[in-house]
Structures are given as structure tokens and as C-alpha cells.
């Protein structure tokens, strides 16, 4: 793992991500050849192609990449935190909190930026709620954190149903699209991409400590890791990543669960490799899923969360079935 050209998989994934992005910006109501696409990216091409690619398709593709990358990295971090390879960024109720925030904003009739802001606030509130409750009296253990998160998530689910049942029918489609994960309203990809790159850089010095933490908190402490501060920072980092992703695209499920799990099967469990690999593979997966979501029943669009769930559920069940 730390030996013999560990970065080759990252190069392969980077290439895959680039190809996926190329396909994504080329396909659509007006197909553009790969050659033309490359010409537009290098600064030439017709004005129509420029507008279509740089202003309409590229921001959405980048948003998809950022969302997928953020969710996959958040999932990988949560899995180390909970010492459970089957944890997911949503399992602790983050998306539930974000959804309640977003739906309340939609119910109040505001749009755009306020919905995103409200979703972000909801996700962070959910984070603090779960952490505070799991902390409670005495120490928190991974299993206690997990249980608290699952129960709180169920509570958010009930509130979401309540909001939906009180909403006039005319506003329901927007809400449902948000709940299923939808990139068509993503405002700008840049904050998400920047956070993704920042976290990947931070992960390098933290990576070995994360590897040790994956062996249990006592073992990590015996090897000189300051366990509590490290766990706090992983939790906050994963929450921030998830909140950013949910704010951009609503709840897109399974990326955070399936991507780290599959990469671990192939690349082993060195976090210094797995986390950047998750960023690239998660991004690539969501770019492809979003491309599918745009073209399957064009000109109508599917919510991208439906595609990831349709891919994710069988993949995950298969992995679970195959594992001991």
C-alpha cells in the first residue's frame, strides 16, 4: 500500500473523470462531437457551442463532479469514524436535517439561494443535534453515535412527511425533485469543488492517523493519536462535506456508501490513497449518472438520485451478499 507507485490508481481515476466530463458536456439536446468539445475547451469553436458548453453544460457537470466527490469522501470519513465499512454520510440524519431546512424554505415560498442556505443550516443543525445527544452524559462510542443518528434520521423522516402532507399540491413536484436529488438547480460548482480540493489536501497529513484510528480508538491512543480531537475533526469535516453536497444537489443517495466500499475492495484501506480516490471516483460516478438522468427520457429529466439509487442498491446488495 504505501509502497510501489501508490499514485497510479489516482492517475487512472483522474483520466476517467476527465473522460466522463467530456462525455457529459458533449451529450445533450444538441450533440457536439468530442473534437468540437475539445476545441471549445481550448478556446475556439463557434459561439453557440461556446455558450452551450461553457455556460450551460460545464457548470452542471462540475457541480455533479463536486457533489459526487464530496459525498464519497464524506462517506469514507464517516466509515473510519464509526469503524463500520457500511456507514454512509446520510445515516446520521444529515440529509434529513438538510431536507427539512430546504422544504421549510420552499413551503415559505422563497427560492434559490434561501433554499440552499436553509438546507445547509438544517444539515449543520442535524450534525450538532446528533453529536450533542450521542455525547450526552459520559463518552460516546461509535455504536452509540450510529444509533443516535439512525433514530434522529427517522425523526427527520417523519417531519418531512408532515411537511409534504401540509403542502399545496402545486408546490409538491419541486419538493419531491429536491428530495430525490437533482442537479438542475445547482447554482455554482466552485465552493463545492474548492472544499473538495481542500479536504483532499488536509487528508494527506491526517491519513496515517486515520489508518490507525480505523483499528479502534484505544489502539490509536496507544500509538500516540489524540483520538478525541481527531474524531471531532473527522465528524465536522464529513458534516461540512455532506452539507455542501446536499445544498448543491438535494439528497443523492448511495454514492457515499458504494464508492468507498468498492474502492476499498480494489485498493486496500490506506486512507491516504482511498480518500483522494473517493473524490475522483465519486465525482466521475455522479457525472455519468447525471448524464444518464438528462438523456434517458429527454427532453424530460430524471432526478439524479433515482439513477444513483438504481445503480447503488443492487451493487450494494451484491457486495453485501458476497462478503463474509
Amino acid at each position, binding site marked *: 500500500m504505501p509502497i510501489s507507485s501508490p499514485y497510479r490508481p489516482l492517475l487512472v481515476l483522474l483520466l476517467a473523470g476527465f473522460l466522463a466530463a467530456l462525455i457529459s458536456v458533449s451529450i445533450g439536446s444538441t450533440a457536439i462531437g468530442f473534437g468540437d468539445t475539445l476545441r471549445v475547451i481550448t478556446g475556439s469553436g463557434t459561439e453557440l457551442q461556446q455558450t452551450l458548453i461553457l455556460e450551460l453544460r460545464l457548470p452542471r457537470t462540475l457541480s455533479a463532479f463536486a457533489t459526487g466527490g464530496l459525498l464519497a469522501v464524506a462517506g469514507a470519513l464517516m466509515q473510519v469514524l464509526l*469503524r463500520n465499512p457500511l456507514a454512509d454520510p446520510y445515516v446520521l440524519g444529515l440529509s434529513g436535517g438538510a431536507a427539512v431546512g430546504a422544504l421549510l424554505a420552499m413551503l415559505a415560498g422563497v427560492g434559490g439561494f434561501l433554499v440552499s442556505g436553509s438546507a445547509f443550516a438544517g444539515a449543520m443543525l442535524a450534525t450538532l443535534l446528533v453529536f450533542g445527544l450521542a455525547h450526552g452524559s459520559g463518552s460516546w462510542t461509535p455504536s452509540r453515535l450510529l444509533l443516535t443518528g439512525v433514530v434522529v434520521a427517522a425523526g427527520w423522516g417523519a417531519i418531512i412527511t408532515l411537511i409534504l402532507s401540509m403542502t399545496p399540491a402545486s408546490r409538491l413536484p419541486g419538493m419531491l425533485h429536491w428530495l430525490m436529488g437533482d442537479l438542475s438547480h445547482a447554482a455554482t460548482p466552485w465552493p463545492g469543488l474548492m472544499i473538495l480540493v481542500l479536504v483532499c489536501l488536509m487528508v494527506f497529513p491526517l491519513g*496515517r492517523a486515520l489508518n490507525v484510528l480505523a483499528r479502534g480508538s484505544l489502539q490509536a491512543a496507544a500509538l*500516540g493519536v489524540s483520538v478525541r480531537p481527531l474524531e471531532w475533526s473527522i465528524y465536522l469535516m464529513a458534516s461540512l462535506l455532506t452539507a455542501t453536497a446536499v445544498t448543491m444537489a438535494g439528497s443523492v443517495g448511495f454514492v457515499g456508501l458504494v464508492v468507498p466500499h468498492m474502492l476499498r475492495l480494489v485498493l486496500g484501506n490506506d486512507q491516504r490513497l482511498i480518500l483522494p480516490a473517493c473524490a475522483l471516483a465519486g465525482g466521475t460516478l455522479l457525472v455519468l449518472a447525471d448524464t444518464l438522468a438528462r438523456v434517458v427520457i429527454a427532453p424530460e429529466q430524471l432526478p439524479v438520485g433515482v439513477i444513483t439509487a438504481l445503480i447503488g442498491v443492487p451493487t450494494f446488495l451484491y457486495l453485501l451478499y458476497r462478503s463474509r
Partner: protein
Amino acid sequence: MTRLTTEALIIDIPGRASGVPLNLAIEPGQVWGVLGPNGVGKTTLLHTLAGLRAPRSGQLLLDETPLHDIRRKTVSQQMGLVFQDRQDGFPATALETALIGRHPWLSPWQMESGEDLAIAERALEALDVIHLKDRLVNTLSGGERQRVAIATLMTQSPEIWLLDEPTNHLDLQHQTAVMKLLRQQAACDRAVFMCLHDLNLAARWCDQILLLYPDGQACWGPARDMLVTSALESLFGQRLLSAELDGFPVFVPG
């Protein structure tokens, strides 16, 4: 050379009276064995000595410095612990597992070097698990995993070795091999402090013994003074027969 001393140490076992405060001096070159029935606090004592658990009262000194004043990373360069049970939530190979022992010695920005790898491989070889280095730890047998765990401690190479029942799951041959290895470490001026259940291993390999009683009483000293049949009978509540073989006492249930 590092020495661990406890001053009026009382370990924190909920719901139990404080009992006798421990004033131990664990010196380089010594091999300590801790004996006592189940639930008496042997593991709690080890975790407390390693600084992973706060004592009820008293303090721990690493050389002359209170343990809680020393950075965790520095402590882990001086003192390491083999746990009784381990978490293998994520699959990892035996070599990767041993290699995490290098963590205290590397800065956050450093990758493991070829030298670190060589240290880990030497440790796996010393524990006779080098042929399993690329196997996933969760596919190994209990005894093999135990040896990988000891190899991790050896890779960490601290001055003070704490071990919680290091011979758990080991066959006879490897029990002896591990005990020989621990004595070798002590001969290199390291201190070894371990919990044991096997009286005969303690009698054969330890030079200092700590007896922990369920009511919080404790006594400690050189092995030949502590391993007295009557004291051990009252410790375990079990009648014992003893004999001397090859210069070492041997105990069997009577």
C-alpha cells in the same frame, strides 16, 4: 532506558473499594507478571499504566515526569501495549497491521520508508508470521493474530512493553517462543509488564510478580517470594499442588 513508577496508584473500577495503593517501580530489564482471577482489574491496570484511563487517585511517572504532562506521541514512543481484543473492522494485511507500529515515529507528512518496512518485516519474522505478511488479518487464526499484534508492538519498539495476556490462543511452542522473545527484550534493558493466567509461565519467565485480589488487596515483589502455594491458593480460591522441576516451581490444580 525508561522506568515507569506508580505513586499511590488506585485504579478506577466502578463500584469497588479502593484497596491497597500500588507503588510499583517497573525498571528496565525486569519482566513482570500480573496474576489474579477474572474481573480483578488486570486489564484496567494495564490501560491505566498506558495512560489510556485515568486512575482514581495517585499518579504515574515516566522517568521523573508525570505521564499526563507528556504528549501522547512521546508516550507512545516510550510505551506500547498489546490489547487483549482487537478491532478488525476494515480488512488489512499482516504487514500493514505491523506497520502501524511505526506511527509514533513518523511525522504527519512522512510516508513509511523502506527502513520502516524492514523493521516491520523483522518483527513479523521474530514472531514467525512473516509467511503470512500478505494475508488479511481477519482470515488468520486466533494465535496467528495474537502474534501479529505482538509484532506490531515490536515494530513500535518502545522501552516499556505492556501486554494483556500475550499467550492467549498460542500453541505450546509459540508460547515459549513469545516468552523467550520478551525475556530477550528485557535483556536489552527494556521493561516488560504482562497479565497472565498461566501460573507456570509466570513462574518460568517472570522475575517480578504482582498479585491482584478481588477485594482490592495487592502484593508484589520478586517472583520466588510471591509464588507461594498458600498465597496462590487464596488468590484463585483453588487448591494447588506444587513441585519443583528444573529449578522452577510448577503448579497444578489439586
